């Protein structure tokens, strides 16, 4: 995983609550067996009509937001299915920061495995950011969002912050505890399946 770098960009305001992962990446695209190339299918049913023409009233199709790396959305973002394809699609499209007043647990966890920073803020601040038209800067090291008018601090668990900043490979980290895992297995009373 690449280390997370500070981001400066305009925000794409997706003013909806309960955006579920079925909307972020519809089921027909889950049949692919690789991790790449999902960006073009992001929010597919909101982005395209039945003839696969772009819908002009959907925010991602407004050229004003081309190149935006920060998505701001309403409460309970990423709810529903555990599909990590949702995060792969956001990442491949170009988003590296998602801001919301709350995230669903599995989606939240999936973000960190792919170098995406989900930031949880109070609803009033999210409302304000939905209106922000100037570029904003995300400084993960210092946990600050710099807007044209103010600095907003955000919380992040120190372990998760480290994972993003160092781009750590989770599994390699875990293998350092190989002896502990073996020790646990020796004591475990849960039988094998087979």
């Amino acid at each position: 995983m690449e280390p997370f770098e500070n981001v400066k960009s305009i925000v794409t305001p997706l003013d909806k609550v309960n955006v579920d992962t079925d909307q972020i990446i519809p089921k027909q695209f889950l049949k692919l067996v690789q991790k790449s190339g999902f960006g073009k299918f992001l929010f597919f049913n909101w982005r395209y009509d039945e003839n696969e023409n772009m819908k002009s009233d959907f925010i991602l199709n407004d050229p004003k937001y081309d190149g935006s790396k920060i998505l701001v959305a309403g409460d309970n973002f990423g709810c529903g299915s555990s599909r990590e394809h949702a995060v792969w699609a956001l990442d491949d499209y170009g988003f590296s920061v998602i801001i919301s007043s709350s995230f669903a647990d599995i989606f939240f966890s999936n973000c960190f495995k792919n170098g995406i920073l989900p930031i949880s803020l109070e609803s009033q601040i999210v409302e304000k950011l939905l209106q922000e038209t100037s570029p904003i800067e995300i400084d993960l090291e210092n946990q600050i969002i710099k807007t044209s008018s103010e600095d907003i601090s955000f919380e992040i668990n120190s372990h998760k912050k480290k994972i993003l900043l160092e781009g750590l490979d989770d599994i390699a980290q875990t293998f350092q505890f190989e002896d502990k895992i073996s020790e646990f297995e020796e004591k475990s009373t849960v039988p094998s399946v087979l």
Partner: protein
Amino acid sequence: MGKTLFEKIWESHIVVTKQNEPDLIYIDRHLVHEVTSPQAFDGLRMNNRKVRRPDLTIATMDHNVPTSDRSLPILDQTSAVQIKTLETNCKDFGIKLFDINSPNQGIVHVIGPQLGITLPGSTIVCGDSHTSTHGAFGALALGIGTSEVEHVLASQTLWLEKPKTFEVRVEGKRSNPHAVTAKDIILSIIKNIGTAGGTGTVIEYRGEGINDLSMDERMTICNMSIEGGARAGLIAPDQKTFDYLQDREYTPKNYESLVDSWKDTLKTDSDATFDKQFILDINDIAPQVSWGTNPGMTCDVDEPIPSPDEYSNGDANQKKGAEKALEYMDLKSGTMIEDIKIDRVFIGSCTNARLEDLIEASKIIQGQKVASSVNAMVVPGSQMVKRQAEEMGLDKIFIDANFEWREAGCSMCLGMNPDILSPGERCASTSNRNFEGRQGNGGRTHLVSPVMAAAAAINGHFVDVRKLDLN
């Protein structure tokens, strides 16, 4: 101070713990399916890693599989590739696979318990949010993403932050348990706590209303924990749990001694406290029908659809959400639920496609015909459920009523296979999610119990099954 059941399971699975960091938790059972695993196996290959414990891992194919004639080739090439990929991965990494022709094939959350793979007090993961189903057996069962699937394959562990505890106490007795079902209990809970009400928590369902439920019903409750936002849902095991798992194909040989140890330990201590609590009284609850585009947008069958104002309780964003939902569903506030006409009926999914679900639905339709305007199908949750139902003659009841009787799989719950709604079609569905386009682009889903779905199939619109003679 005493401990909750969840805390006991958690603590007994800690491999590494450090202050202010996630715990490394050991995983006893890993269930794998074709959709969320190919990239995980690729990751192992790229790094020359093995599956650490193939003997704790099983796989099946459920999301993509056609539910029509299994002797025919799969027409959708991308589905066929994904199914083939799982076969290759299981072969290469030595994992037991219940493939499309196996008598044990089925929805992963239906087969785990049926085969005795799901065990009380164990930790279970699967790359699927409805893994919470297995919590009905007093297991800590978590849905995970593909990166975590890879992590478990490689290390049999996961780094997890300890969730908070949430007691959902279900009190009272249903006066008509054939009409008011486990599905109505869980939809009522979600309607009350909201779709994010359980975020960051593990729910333990407790109380008389839970003790009274069968194992099939408890699975329906735990299955939809994720629809309330919870990380997992669980129910303390009791004699019904132990009896259910007795003599299954993969029930451990030392089962009796395991049961003895579980009886002593797998319960919440009387002096334990929870971080959060919700109480539902089920004495007077009604059958539930969802009207919107998330499972919290649900009302009683004898109620009108609420206005966005009534639904949102003053929250402007929720109000906007409800307006959008009504527009998508092509419904108006004030319309009585029983006046909503339907085009399709789907009885299936990991929520409601077990044997008891099919038995209850069959009682509603026996000797009747599906309304001429309705297309109805039954997709048993597993090949084993299908065989058991056929031994009881349920298939004939459904077929005689003009239901389609299909092979096992996830089917129209998420429409990855050919079973989908056309744009604008309205479906009474026993599944778990009424999200926009979930069952097919432009399709409109109403979540209901199997008996409500069966009654809607016969009448062409929703009916209050409490009015029917169900004894």
